[in-house]
């Protein structure tokens, strides 16, 4: 029943906001819908914690410790982003960048986008997972081009075509998976259900599954933003409205990585080797290194943080690829803290860019002087994402690095150099933006910075102390993924 509410509210919200999106209370309605989704997700979470995993609707939907934590995270960040977008979009409207009709499109698509992500997480059917991932691209592509500037349309076109082609590979992978599964489970609806596949994974044909995994990794990996398939990501993040950058970076990339990890579990079972893990480690390491070196060449602040997302997604993919209890635990923790921190940074960056009238870092100066909260939010968020203790990112990165040091010492130079380069590149730039002299004016509407500090407080909490029930929950999920 909870599953119904979690999926039903955003779907319904998409249609309601398409009808009432031009009214004055539309932003509040959007936040209310997201809050209800979050409440339903919280109920679902308590039920899974108390009574364990369950499935519903002829096993079409399935909840276990692994996906429920992502559902809770997605619904939470979805809610806080809707809070942030309320004043942010008002200011954009005030600046004459958006019309009322564009805002209606934005609210409606925002809700539908939440729906597609939650569907991708909750479905048990690998085919529906693909359908939901493709639908997530479709709902966000018009949001990326919301401003209708040539640059934003170019970014959206690139996003559509690259992710479309990438996901076509994933569909081929899904077909191959079905082909292997059909021999064991028989034709028909149940052969693509993940729980059924997981039960018979040792009997699945290894050659077919290894080929299927390559296609699935390349396909969903395009959406994760893994190098060298990442080209769409910086453009889409930089040209879209900031709330969209925040949910793309904080949530969509996680959901795509979730799809990869679910496939990995099946392939590991069928092959009994580290084949899938090696592939993921390779792609992950390449993304970390490549992103770090592109970071230092950026001029646009949102582009820079988009590259930082590629770096962190690479690190998570690397962690899940290594496998084992510690690395997988760290991977999930990193998913959580990265999602919270990166969306907080985008919130602060969004207001900073609005205030300065430009996204170019040379034009953003002296945030602490005119809007101290924006400045502090950006400074603290940056310290957190760079892995400074005592924030949670430090904890997860430390765990990933120590595991890698034991199991794969040769990766150490690459990872450490990349993290160092990323630190130097981001820290130097953010410092200039936060401090320094400015003649800028204050914003016409008060900025929404409560979400920024709530997110950063949670990241700080996760760095200092992981509550025992949360740790137990991560451990359960770790046991599932292996």
């Amino acid at each position: 029943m909870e599953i119904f509410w979690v999926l039903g509210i955003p779907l319904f919200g998409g249609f309601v906001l398409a009808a009432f999106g031009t009214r004055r209370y539309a932003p509040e309605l959007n936040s209310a819908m997201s809050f209800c989704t979050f409440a339903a997700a919280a109920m679902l979470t308590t039920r899974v914690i108390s009574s364990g995993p369950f499935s519903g609707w002829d096993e079409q939907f399935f909840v276990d410790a692994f996906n429920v934590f992502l559902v809770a995270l997605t619904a939470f960040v979805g809610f806080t982003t809707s809070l942030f977008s309320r004043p942010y979009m008002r200011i954009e409207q005030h600046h004459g960048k958006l019309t009322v009709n564009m805002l209606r499109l934005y609210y409606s698509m925002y809700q539908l986008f939440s729906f597609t992500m939650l569907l991708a997480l909750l479905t048990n059917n690998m085919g529906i997972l693909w359908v939901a991932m493709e639908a997530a691209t479709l709902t966000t592509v018009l949001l990326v081009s919301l401003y209708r500037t040539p640059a934003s349309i170019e970014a959206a076109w690139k996003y559509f075509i690259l992710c479309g082609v990438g996901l076509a590979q994933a569909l081929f992978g899904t077909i191959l998976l079905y082909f292997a599964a059909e021999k064991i489970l028989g034709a028909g609806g149940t052969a693509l259900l993940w729980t059924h596949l997981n039960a018979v994974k040792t009997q699945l044909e290894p050659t077919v599954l290894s080929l299927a995994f390559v296609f699935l990794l390349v396909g969903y990996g395009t959406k994760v933003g893994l190098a060298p398939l990442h080209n769409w990501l910086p453009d889409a993040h930089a040209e879209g409205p900031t709330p969209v950058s925040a949910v793309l970076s904080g949530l969509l990339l996680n959901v795509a990585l979730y799809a990869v990890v679910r496939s990995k579990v099946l392939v590991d079972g069928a092959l009994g080797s580290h084949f899938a893990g090696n592939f993921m480690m390779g792609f992950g390491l390449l993304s970390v290194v490549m992103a770090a070196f592109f970071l230092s060449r950026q001029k646009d602040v949102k582009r820079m943080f988009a590259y930082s997302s590629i770096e962190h997604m690479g690190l998570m993919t690397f962690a899940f690829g290594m496998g084992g209890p510690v690395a997988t635990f760290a991977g999930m923790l990193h998913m959580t803290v990265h999602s919270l921190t990166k969306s907080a940074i985008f919130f602060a960056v969004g207001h900073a860019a609005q205030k300065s009238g430009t996204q170019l870092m040379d034009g953003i100066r002296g945030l602490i002087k005119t809007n101290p909260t924006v400045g502090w939010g950006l400074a603290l968020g940056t310290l957190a994402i760079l892995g400074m203790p005592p924030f949670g990112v430090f904890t997860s990165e430390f765990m990933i690095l120590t595991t890698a040091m034991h199991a794969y010492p040769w990766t150490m130079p690459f990872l450490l150099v990349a993290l160092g380069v990323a630190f130097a590149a981001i820290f130097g730039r953010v410092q200039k933006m936060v401090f320094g002299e400015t003649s800028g004016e204050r914003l016409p509407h008060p900025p929404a910075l409560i979400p920024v500090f709530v997110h950063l407080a949670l990241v700080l909490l996760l760095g200092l102390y992981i509550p025992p029930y949360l740790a137990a929950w991560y451990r359960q999920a770790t046991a599932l993924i292996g």
Partner: protein
Amino acid sequence: MNIPFTAQLINMCAALLLLIAFAMLSQRRILSLINLFALQGLVLSVSTAVVAYTSSQEHLYYSAGLTLLLKVLLLPWILHRLIRKLNIKWDVETMFNIPTIMLIGLALVVFAFNLAAPISHMAGTITKSTLGIAMASVLLSFLMMITRSKAVPQVVGFLAMENGLFFAATSATYGMPMVVELGIALDVLVGMFILGIFFFQIRVAFDSLDLKHMEQLKED
């Protein structure tokens, strides 16, 4: 070797699909390209129906009908309307080196057959020999997207790739579960509408549908 009549029919459809994929690769007129796409959908629909008949898989009839409705009637109709409204009906694309592109295409077909060979051996379906062709037409559509610089042909290439994937699904496995197929069809349809909106946005922003103008976003 004695091959049943229906299997021969399916093989012929597969060969036609490959032929159409090559024709699309070299077609420079937008109008003819859309007609070729509709023809590809028709062949796909016929072959699905034949597979449904021989294997007596009830649900494949539905997917054959769905293909007919979506890919032969609806999508080409939308595309025709779009090119009329955008006034690019008689556009001819300047493409260089068509012979080279065709040669690359040939190499891709050989590659696809090699890749598909180990899987085809395992397939128990009567259509197993066609998996290589399905893969080849996916790769050829991919090549077509790379070599085109205009928006509409790129999209036709994208849709043709989906056709190839659908053929892979029917030839290797007798089709995906119905709920998944419906979901994919919905995605394709919604995607087409969004692309339609996009064409107009691109046209307003760049004064043309030529993607060569899109070169603002680059890493220096």
